[in-house]
């Protein structure tokens, strides 16, 4: 593939996404995972690592990992190992994080998405189960920080991609697709403000053909817009360094949305040696084939499969099909509207056009669209049966969206947008037009086709655009021919 270069450099990006799994209880304890509770009211003795406590793994977290593995066509490991990642940090109660190191539960797989109408495929290295850390509150307590461990022990699936992305746009699109997928699968609520879906982005640059450059990891990006900004800033910063003859040091950096800049984290400086070893409190996680089969049977139709169906059955182009499966809500909307009007391509056009344009503008989700699927279907029906023109349909849509009305036919009536189907009336007008434009009629008869178009134009004007253009053409030719 040909990669867009930035200032002569190729950008290499890999992502690590931390996905909070939508379990009721924590990964190793029976504490609630509900967001927003009073500090440390959802931190049990186990979560606080009080002396003598031990972890017991939550089946629901494993089940969600299996779901994800199946969805991306990865290998669900029949045996995987929990390991301790040792480092000291106040939000890490045990002084180690229980994670998976050498043998993760999900191995391989890939994620496909479009950037514009170009299809991309990103390979996954792995996805492993681990526990989330608590939070350090930085507002000042007489020069100290406050530690809230409610989040400690929330189940995470860390999804690691190969360095397959070559631009911020690709990275953002990959992240969006992953985000949509985990929500589609019902394994994560996708709430990025609350940190349910976080992106760490590994960025490096190199001259084409050269080996990978040294990467810096941008931590904890919680919006796709920030991701784009951060990558853009980081790429140019790295290129500046190299252009100034400076080497890139491997580092963990934070993105500051206010300044739009990235800066190296101080706290991570010496956490190089994690002393991983298998957690002796947790024997190997065994996943029997029967379990995988059961999860497979309960899986919803996957976006890719559904998109293929939209191509095969509805005859949508690949791009449209993918767009109609961006989220479960979009797919449901599309399918309902298609059922209602039987015109898949028209529905796709409207969803990709007017609807998403307005939704984006108002930052609404499609399931909150002021124009519901069945209403859109009714509108499309009226275009198909020639009752209204496309332009008229847009006016009706505006009215529906703005809440001026909710019944398509009523609005068409009220706005008088109905195309003229009464041929008697049309003939009367056409006769007037012909009479009033004798010159054009002669020219036409003399063989000037342009003259015919002029007459059509006059006719449309005389009908104030309500006439069905094809009907006008037909009648005119008949009259002139006669």
């Amino acid at each position, binding site marked *: 593939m040909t990669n867009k270069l930035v200032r002569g450099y190729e950008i290499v990006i890999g992502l690590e996404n931390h996905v909070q799994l939508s379990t009721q209880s924590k990964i190793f304890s029976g504490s*609630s995972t509900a967001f927003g509770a009073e500090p440390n009211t959802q931190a049990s003795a186990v979560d*606080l690592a009080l002396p003598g406590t031990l972890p017991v793994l939550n089946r629901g977290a494993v089940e969600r990992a299996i779901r994800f593995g199946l969805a991306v066509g990865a290998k669900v490991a029949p045996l995987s190992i929990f390991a301790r990642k040792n480092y000291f940090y106040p939000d890490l109660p045990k002084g180690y994080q229980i994670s998976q190191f050498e043998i993760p539960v999900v191995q391989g797989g890939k994620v496909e998405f479009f950037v514009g109408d170009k299809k991309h495929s990103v390979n996954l290295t792995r996805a492993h189960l681990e526990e989330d850390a608590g939070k350090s509150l930085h507002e000042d307590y007489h020069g100290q920080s406050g530690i809230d461990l409610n989040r400690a022990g929330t189940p995470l699936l860390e999804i690691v991609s190969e360095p397959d992305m070559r631009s911020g746009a690709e990275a953002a699109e990959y992240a969006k697709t992953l985000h949509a997928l985990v929500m589609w699968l019902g394994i994560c609520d996708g709430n990025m403000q609350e940190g349910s879906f976080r992106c760490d982005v590994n960025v490096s640059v190199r001259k084409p053909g050269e080996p990978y450059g040294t990467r810096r990891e941008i931590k904890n990006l919680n919006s796709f817009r920030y991701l784009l900004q951060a990558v853009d800033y980081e790429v140019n910063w790295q290129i500046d360094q190299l252009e100034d003859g400076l080497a890139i040091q491997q580092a963990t950096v934070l993105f500051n949305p206010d300044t739009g800049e990235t800066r190296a984290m101080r*706290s991570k400086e010496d956490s190089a040696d994690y*002393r991983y070893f298998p957690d002796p409190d947790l024997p190997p996680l*065994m996943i029997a084939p029967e379990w995988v089969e059961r999860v497979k049977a309960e899986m919803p139709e996957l976006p890719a499969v559904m998109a293929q169906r939209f191509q095969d059955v509805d005859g949508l182009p690949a791009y449209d099909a993918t767009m109609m499966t961006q989220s479960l809500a979009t797919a449901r909307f599309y399918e309902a509207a298609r059922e209602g009007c039987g015109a898949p391509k028209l529905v796709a056009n409207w969803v990709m056009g007017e609807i998403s344009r307005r939704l984006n503008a108002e930052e609404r989700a499609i399931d909150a669209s002021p124009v519901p699927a069945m209403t859109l279907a009714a509108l499309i029906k009226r275009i198909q049966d020639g009752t209204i023109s496309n332009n008229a349909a847009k006016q009706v849509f505006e009215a529906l969206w703005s809440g001026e009305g909710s019944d398509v036919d009523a609005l068409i009536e009220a706005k008088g947008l109905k195309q003229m189907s009464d041929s008697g009336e049309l003939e009367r007008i056409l006769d007037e037009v012909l009479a009033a434009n004798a010159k054009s009629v002669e020219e036409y008869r003399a063989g000037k086709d342009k003259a015919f178009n002029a007459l059509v134009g006059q006719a449309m004007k005389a009908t104030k655009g309500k006439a069905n253009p094809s009907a006008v053409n037909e009648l005119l030719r008949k009259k002139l021919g006669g």
Partner: protein
Amino acid sequence: MALTPQDVSRIAHLARLELQEAESAALLPQLNGFFSIVEQMSAVDTRGVEPLYTPLSTVQQVALRLREDRVTESNQRELNQRSAPAVEDGLFLVPKVIE
């Protein structure tokens, strides 16, 4: 192989232990004495041997037992924090955390 004073201070830092001069000085020969009895280990050929992470796997397959996904804990903050060195508004206080 013998440990150096640098190894000792590196490990002490990793383990978050402040060692006094005298302590480090005493530790070095002790650690080296220990690792001298460890040497015999490396002589054994263990190729193809599975590590024994949990004892019972000597005689049977040991699989991790799983919990059902249910909330079983209630708020015990007061009891859980009764031995905490510094608490305010239910938060554990620590010296400023710099990211």
